[in-house]
């Protein structure tokens, strides 16, 4: 689905991403882990067109998409979330979701003026979808609240909800679990699995919660200092000394494995 080929990116003297290559297979849920500052989010930014790579190429289903602007990628079915939630803070939660669907008739000003009733009808349909998503994420009680007033975790959920409003084929999730309550996180994992299974979404997930990664992802890529240092399933990575040293540490969090 997504082929990342020898992608590099430096910021000043810092080589944030170095010659990284891997493939996110269609229909997979691929994990991406690594220490803080390893370059994971930077890689996401490159894939999603937010920043250009210094070298290397990105292909989406064989098509070269390197350097395409974000909104074009969206229409090719590539969607992302942000590590720090990017909500529309002065719009309501519902509006945050209703914004997302592509090619809305009413996004054309002339059509809005000339065929108002069709626009309203279409919008009603979108609203229904949005309410479904909110109910699923258990934040429908705040649906008319301004998104800026949500709690930190609620914002993360809203971010995920926006990807559910699309007909995406490939979704990049940057730490969907950070700050989300563990009980809800379980449900979130379910949601991701279901989207993957039922709608055929392909996921690439950055996450520091090893329980979540272990439960969802196969394969898992490990980055450190901008390079890809290992890949495989979580169980094998846990045994990899390099990964343990760079990332998991020896303490409890890497090992208390199967919480759920």
């Amino acid at each position, binding site marked *: 689905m997504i082929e990342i080929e020898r992608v590099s990116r430096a910021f000043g003297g810092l080589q944030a991403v170095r010659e990284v290559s891997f493939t996110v297979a269609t229909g997979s849920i691929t994990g991406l882990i690594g220490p803080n500052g390893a370059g994971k989010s930077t890689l996401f930014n490159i894939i999603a067109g937010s920043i250009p790579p210094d070298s290397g190429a990105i292909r989406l289903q064989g098509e070269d998409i390197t350097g395409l602007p974000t909104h074009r990628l969206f229409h090719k079915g590539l969607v992302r979330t942000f590590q720090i939630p990017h909500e529309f803070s002065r719009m309501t939660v*519902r509006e945050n979701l209703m914004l997302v669907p592509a090619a809305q008739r009413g*996004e054309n000003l002339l059509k*809005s003026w000339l065929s108002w009733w069709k626009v*309203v009808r279409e919008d009603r349909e979108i*609203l229904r979808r949005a309410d479904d998503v909110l109910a699923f994420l258990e934040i429908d009680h705040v649906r008319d609240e301004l998104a800026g007033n949500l709690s930190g975790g609620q914002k993360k959920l809203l971010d995920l909800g926006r990807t559910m409003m699309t007909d995406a084929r490939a979704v990049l999730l940057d730490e969907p679990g950070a700050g989300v309550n563990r009980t809800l996180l379980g449900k979130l994992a379910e949601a991701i699995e279901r989207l993957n299974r039922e709608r055929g979404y392909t996921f690439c997930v950055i996450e520091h919660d090893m329980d979540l990664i272990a439960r969802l992802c196969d394969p898992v890529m490990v980055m450190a200092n901008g390079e890809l240092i290992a890949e495989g399933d979580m169980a094998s990575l846990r045994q990899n000394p390099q990964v343990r040293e760079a990332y998991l540490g020896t303490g409890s969090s890497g090992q208390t494995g199967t919480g759920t």
Partner: protein
Amino acid sequence: MDLAGLLAYGLFFLNLVGIYAIMALGLNMQWGMTGQFNIGIAGFFAVGAYTSAILTTGSSPTWLGGFGLPFLLGLAATVLVCLPIAWLVGRITARLRTDYLAIATIGIAEIIRLFFLNEGWLTNGVRGIPGIEKPLGTGNGGYLLIVTAFVALIWLLVEMARRSPWGRVLRAIRDNEPATAAAGKDIARFRLQAFVVGSCIMALAGGLYAHFVGFVSPEAFRPLYGTFLVWVMLIAGGSGNNLGAILGALVVWLIWSSTEMLAGVLPTDLIGSESAFRVFLIGVLLQIILVSRPQGMLPERRPPMPGEQR
């Protein structure tokens, strides 16, 4: 001070209010809905006024005239002429953030004004263009009907735009650009559209103004009356709220003209200069409005959800 006189002044007054209300609506599309800080309103206002003036007046040896088009065609032309200009300005300034856009647009507006001032072959330069007629020989009353019709039409169009998904994208852009891009919206396109539509509305107001006062010269398009007053109207009325924009135009113009009577009440030796005191009063009233109702008289309300009655 008889009733007929008051009525006559009222008609006149409302004409100007209507013209300013249209400008405030145009600004609302740019600022209230998209967050584009355009302080070059006077530039587009001037483009509209001059376009209509040049196209509808009789011929003259000193400036490019003699087209003698009818009123409505002149107004249509304001929009058509403004379109490419606003598009160009919008393209140039597309990437600019709020404060930068503000200062760029005020610069462009001044350049436009200096152009009209110095290119006499086109605009009769400093002398201005006289003899712009009201359509069908209407007086202030008749013209008020026309202006009111335009205010209503523009209000309807802008309000529909605000409630449409198009408006929703604009508000999203105002809120958070990267996230809007991540949601697949072509930010540059939407911003440009809002800028161009808003500017064309201002140009249309310019055309109405030219026919109302019958004369245009560069003096009418200096920043104070061409731009800041419109801002004051929108902010005092309630940015983001289209009725607020109209109400703001009414209230602010009322303050502007009624302070003169207020200032006359105080003895001159107490306040030095009556007229300076009037400006002082305007400033103070404005401050009071801003401090006591910073959201404006009619604050922004979120557009109704589809199916919701509002």
